């Protein structure tokens, strides 16, 4: 699905990515992890075509994103959940989700209405809350509506930027559950950036670790954990990491 080849990114003199390679296959849930400033979000934005790499290529669905002539068609095939939702604050929750469907100009309004309500139902928003403005929604509901908007055009690929940041443990657990069930129901490929080790181990089928300006390890969680690298040891095997890992092993064995 996604293929990053020999990617270089520079901001002035500062090199963010140096010969970075990464491949993401269909149906995977891939987490990009790394320290602050390691260029995770930059990489995500390059996959979305919001930023251009200095050198190298980022191919999504086989199209080179920074050079393709079909950027709009490609963009209709993926959905993005921004860290703070990025809902249009002037539109109701319902209109926010309806916006990408209406933008196609051919779907009848009755169909759009039912399809939006189904999407909101899938993320657990009742029709009663659908007419509220984003300012009147709680943080968890904003993320849910934003997820429904990201899924509005039945994407094959879903990008998540810190999906559980700012949610309480209960909410973030149910959000993880939601993403997992949608991943199965809609056969999604998911790429996410996260710092939350619980979310990381609960969701990902694959992990890619960014450090030293490149991907130092990529593969299943077990493979990545077995990689002998000081950053991986420190990141995953600190106190918090150990706790999350115990849960991972517990759930795998149960």
């Amino acid at each position, binding site marked *: 699905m996604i293929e990053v080849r020999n990617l270089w990114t520079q901001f002035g003199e500062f090199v963010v990515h140096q010969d970075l390679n990464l491949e993401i296959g269909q149906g995977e849930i891939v987490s990009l992890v790394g320290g602050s400033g390691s260029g995770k979000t930059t990489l995500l934005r390059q996959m979305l075509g919001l930023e251009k790499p200095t050198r190298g290529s980022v191919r999504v669905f086989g199209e080179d994103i920074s050079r393709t002539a079909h950027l709009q068609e490609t963009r209709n095939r993926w959905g993005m959940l921004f860290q703070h939702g990025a809902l249009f604050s*002037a539109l109701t929750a319902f209109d926010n989700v309806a916006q990408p469907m209406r933008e196609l100009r*051919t779907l009848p309004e009755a169909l759009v209405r039912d399809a939006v309500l*189904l999407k909101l139902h899938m993320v657990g928003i009742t029709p009663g809350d659908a007419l509220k403005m*984003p300012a009147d929604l709680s943080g968890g509901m904003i993320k849910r509506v934003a997820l429904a908007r990201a899924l509005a*055009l039945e994407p094959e690929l879903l990008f998540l930027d810190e999906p559980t940041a700012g949610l309480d443990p209960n909410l973030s657990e149910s959000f993880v559950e939601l993403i997992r069930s949608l991943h199965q129901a809609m056969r999604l490929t998911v790429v996410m950036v996260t710092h939350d080790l619980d979310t990381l181990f609960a969701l990902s089928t694959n992990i890619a670790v960014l450090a030293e300006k490149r991907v130092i390890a990529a593969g299943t969680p077990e493979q990545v954990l077995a990689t002998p690298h000081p950053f991986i040891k420190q990141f995953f095997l600190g106190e918090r990491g150990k706790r999350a890992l115990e849960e991972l092993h517990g759930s795998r064995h149960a």
Partner: protein
Amino acid sequence: MPILEQPVLFLKQNTPLTVHASGHWQVHALTHPDAMSAIRATLANVPRNTLVKWDLSNIAALDHIGAQLLWNAWGKIRPQQLAVLPQHAEFFERLEQAGPLALPQRTKMRRLSLSTLGGWLTGALDHLSGFIALIGQFVMDLGRFAAHPLLGPWKEISANVFHTGYQALGITALVGLLIGVVLSYLSAQQLHTFGGDIYLVNILGMSIIRELGPLLAAILVAGRSGSSITAQLGVMRVTEELDAMLVMGLPHGFRLIMPKVLALAVSMPLLVIWTDAMALFGGMAAAEFELDLSPSYFIQKLPDAVPLANYWIGLGKGVVFGCLIALVACHFGLRIKPNTESLGQGTTISVVTAITIVILADAIFAIVFSNVGYY
């Protein structure tokens, strides 16, 4: 792009009547301009009863929007005779489980009724009381400032004088100069017809110093600084900076509003002098051209033509207009709600109200000082 097969519906007239569907029933295929209209045309021919057999086993791919389209065509119940591939059945199961979903009825607003009229009235009263409270707060802050002048927000005041005064010099000079030229040409032609050329100095001097200078400066400042004050406060509301200030014990009135009002009260009269000078200069230059009225005569005649009181009235107007613009801008800025639409609306209303109030105040000045400054 993968090649999508166009979604197609067709009828087979055997008994029972069968509807066949094939192709990609996915949103990107359905949005193909011909696909949707063809499907609608076919659906119009399908009788609405339970005897129709639906055969979906030739569908290549399905998604929620395609499934919803079929589901709506069935009247939102599963048809009795339905052939569907197992991997597509889950979409209809999900639709069935979701049950009927409907938006709650929005209460329709009548065009004009007693309640909307009441709404306007309470809205206006709310603004009025809010504005009066703002003025009251400002006076109290002013008292606090006067009691301990060394603890006052001097830095904010000087920064605001720089932004609202110094940075407005260019635009006020340009507009003042041009208005002076226009006014001079216009009056010169009229005066010339009955030989009253020398009275040009009186007309220009009186109108610019007493009326146009302060008014022009005020309108420009309302558009420039009024909108920026409102937008700044509005963004501070959106980013919760206003709440952060309150939490740290920095009152809005003392640290945000009073410096802006004082800064405009200082810079507006200075801008009025500047605009007056520029407009008179423009008028003088045009007079030299049009009527051969020499600049030295113009300058010599000016103090005789315009009593000093007019100058003071102009400066007084500058102070009052400056305070009003800043207060109106702060009033609307603090009322902005944390969303983008409210920010745009608030800024527009703020500028429009500021200009209206300035003109209103100008009319009051004209009435109050109707016997001052004339021979």
